[in-house]
C-alpha cells in the first residue's frame, strides 16, 4: 500500500479544533488520556470548553449527559475499551435511554493499543454499543471518514459511538464523496461474493478484492461504516446478487459487524455468511500489524476465505 498514512486520532484532535469554530455548543471531555486521544488539541485551543475529569469515566459520561440536556453538544473521549465498559451503565441508563446528543469517541480502538495488551484493546466495544437502543455505531475506514463521521454525529439528535484507531493507516477516501452515517459505501462491483468490511481492515479488503479480481472472482465490496443503524437495503441487494457474504472486522465476531449483517440477512435466507474477525478470545501485546495478522485480520486471510466460500456449494 503506497497511499499516505494518517492516524485517525490525529484527525480527531484537528477536527475538534476546526469544529469548535462553527459549533459554539461543542464541549469536549476526556479522562486523563487527552494527550493520547489527541483531544488535548481542543483543550489547548478552548480551555473553557474542555473538561479533563481525571481517571473517572463513569463521572465523565454523566457530566456530558447533564451538559447535553442544557444546550451543549459534548464529545466524550477516552479509550474505546473504557468507554464501552467502565461507563456502560452511564451510557445505557443516562445517555442511550434518554437519547441524548452525546458523541462517544472510542480511541485506541480494536487492536490499535497493541503493545499495551489485552487490558487496553477494544475488541467488544461494537457489540456493547450496538446493543444499546438509540445508539448509532460508526466505524470509519480512514482519517477522512473519521472527520466526516464526527461532524455528522454532532448534528444527530441522539448518541453516537465512533471508533478511532491509534495508528497511522492508509488514507482511502480523500477524493471520494463524504461518508454518510447510515449508508453503505460501495467500493467495488462484483457478482461472485459480497465482502462487507468496516474500519481499518477496509484497506485490506480493497487489496484482497483487487487480487480476487485478478484471479477472476468478482467481489461486491461494501464498506459498512455505520454498524447501526445498518443500511439494510444496500446489504440485502448485494446479498441477493452474490448469495455469499464475507464480513470483515477488527472486533470479536460475537456481536460485531458480522452479527449485525447476519441479523439483517438471516430472515431473507438469501446468502451464506462467514466472518473474518476475532474468534472469541482476548488479544495480547505485539506490533499492531503483526497482531492483526496473527488474529486472522489481513488481506491474505480475506482472500483465502473468499476463495473457500466460492469453492463451497451455496446450497446446503
Amino acid at each position: 500500500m503506497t497511499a499516505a498514512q494518517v492516524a485517525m486520532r490525529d484527525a480527531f484532535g484537528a477536527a475538534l479544533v476546526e469544529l469548535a469554530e462553527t459549533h459554539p455548543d461543542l464541549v469536549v471531555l476526556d479522562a486523563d488520556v487527552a494527550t493520547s486521544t489527541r483531544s488535548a488539541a481542543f483543550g489547548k485551543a478552548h480551555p473553557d470548553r474542555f473538561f479533563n475529569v481525571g481517571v473517572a469515566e463513569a463521572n465523565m459520561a454523566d457530566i456530558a449527559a447533564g451538559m447535553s440536556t442544557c444546550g451543549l453538544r459534548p464529545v466524550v473521549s477516552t479509550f474505546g475499551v473504557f468507554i464501552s465498559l467502565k461507563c456502560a451503565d452511564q451510557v445505557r441508563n443516562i445517555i442511550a435511554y434518554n437519547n441524548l446528543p452525546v458523541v462517544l469517541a472510542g480511541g485506541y480502538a480494536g487492536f490499535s493499543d497493541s503493545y499495551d495488551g489485552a487490558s487496553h484493546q477494544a475488541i467488544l466495544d461494537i457489540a456493547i454499543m450496538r446493543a444499546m437502543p438509540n445508539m448509532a455505531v460508526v466505524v470509519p475506514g480512514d482519517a477522512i471518514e473519521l472527520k466526516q463521521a464526527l461532524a455528522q454525529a454532532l448534528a444527530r439528535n441522539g448518541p453516537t459511538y465512533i471508533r478511532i484507531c491509534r495508528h497511522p493507516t492508509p488514507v482511502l477516501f480523500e477524493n471520494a464523496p463524504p461518508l454518510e452515517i447510515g449508508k453503505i459505501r460501495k467500493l467495488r462491483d462484483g457478482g461472485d461474493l459480497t465482502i462487507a468490511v468496516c474500519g481499518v481492515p477496509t484497506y485490506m479488503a480493497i487489496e484482497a478484492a483487487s487480487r480476487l479480481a485478478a484471479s477472476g472472482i468478482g467481489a461486491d465490496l461494501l464498506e459498512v461504516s455505520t454498524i447501526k443503524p445498518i443500511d439494510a437495503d444496500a446489504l440485502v441487494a448485494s446479498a441477493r446478487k452474490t448469495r455469499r457474504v464475507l464480513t470483515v472486522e477488527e472486533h470479536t465476531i460475537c456481536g460485531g459487524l458480522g452479527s449485525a449483517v447476519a441479523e439483517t440477512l438471516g430472515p431473507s435466507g438469501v446468502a451464506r455468511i462467514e466472518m473474518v474477525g476475532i474468534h472469541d478470545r482476548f488479544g495480547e501485546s505485539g506490533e499492531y500489524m503483526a497482531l492483526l495478522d496473527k488474529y486472522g485480520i489481513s488481506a491474505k486471510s480475506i482472500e483465502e476465505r473468499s476463495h473457500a466460500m466460492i469453492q463451497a456449494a451455496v446450497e446446503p
Partner: protein
Amino acid sequence: MPEPGTARALDAASIARLTDRAKKAAQMQYLAQQFRVTVLDILHEKGTGHWGGAASAAELLTALYFDALNVRPDEPSWCDRDRFVLSKGHASCMLYTVLAHRGYFPVDELKTFRQLNSRLQGHPCMHTTPGVEMSTGSLGHGVSVALGMALAARVTKKQYWSWVLIGDGDLNEGQTWEAIMAGAKFRPEKLVLLIDYNKVQLDGPSSEIMPLDPLAEKFRAFGWNVAPQAYDGHNVLEILRSSDWVSTQTDWPVAVIYSTHKGRGVSFMEDNAYWHGSPVDDATYVKARAELLATLTRLEASL
C-alpha cells in the same frame, strides 16, 4: 382511590406564590403530609413502588418545588429554569405527586403510576413525564449529571441553579465520589447537593450495609462547602432556613445534609428497611393511613 380523609384541599399553586415564610412553611408542611397520603394510596392500590424513600423525601421535594426552584410548570422546557435531579429515583411516586400538584400534569394521572402505557414509569423518565429533568433509578448518577448541568450554565452563561437530591444508596456508589471530587475541581456556581440522609438502605441500616459517617467531614475533606449543621429534613421551617443558608453562599459547590427517617409518617414503617419497597397490603394500609391522617389533622389546625 379514597379521598385524603377530612383533609382541607389547599390551592397548591397559590402556596408557591406565598411570601409570608411562616405561613408558607405551615402550608407546605401540610401539603407534604397530604402527598404522603396520596403516595400511600397509590402504592397500596398498585401493589408496587417504594414507600420508604418516598416518605423520607416528602418535605424536601415539596420545599424544592413550592419554594426553592425557579420553574414554570406550564412551560417545562423553559431554558432558564432551575434544574433538579432526583438521584434517588426510587422516590419517584413522591416526585410525581409533587410535580402533579405543582401543575406539571393532571393529578388524576397519578393513578396510572407503574401501569403499562403510563407516562409515570417505575423510576423517573425524562421523556415521558413533564418536569422530570433526568431519568434515574440506577443509583449514583445524579451528582455527575447535576455537575454537568451546572458546568453547562457556566459555558452558556446562564443563571439557572442545578440541584440534586441523593440518598444513602447513592453515597455507596463510587461514581458519586468521583463526582464529588470533580465538583471540587471545577467549582461551578449554583450547584447544590442535598442529602436525604435517612440512614437506612434496602437491606438494612446504612451503619451495617455501608457506614457513611462522618459524612459532613467527608464532604469537607473533598473540598465542598457543607452547611454547618444538619437540618431536620421533615421540618419545612428548617428546610427553609437551610435554603436561606444556601442562598447566601459564594463558595461552591454547596452540600446540605438533612436528617430524615425512611418511611417517615407511619410509626411502624419508620427506619425499617422492610418498607424500602415492600408492597403495602390491605391491613397495613388501613393502619398506616390512619396514622398519616391523624398527623394531617394536627397540621391542619396550625394552618
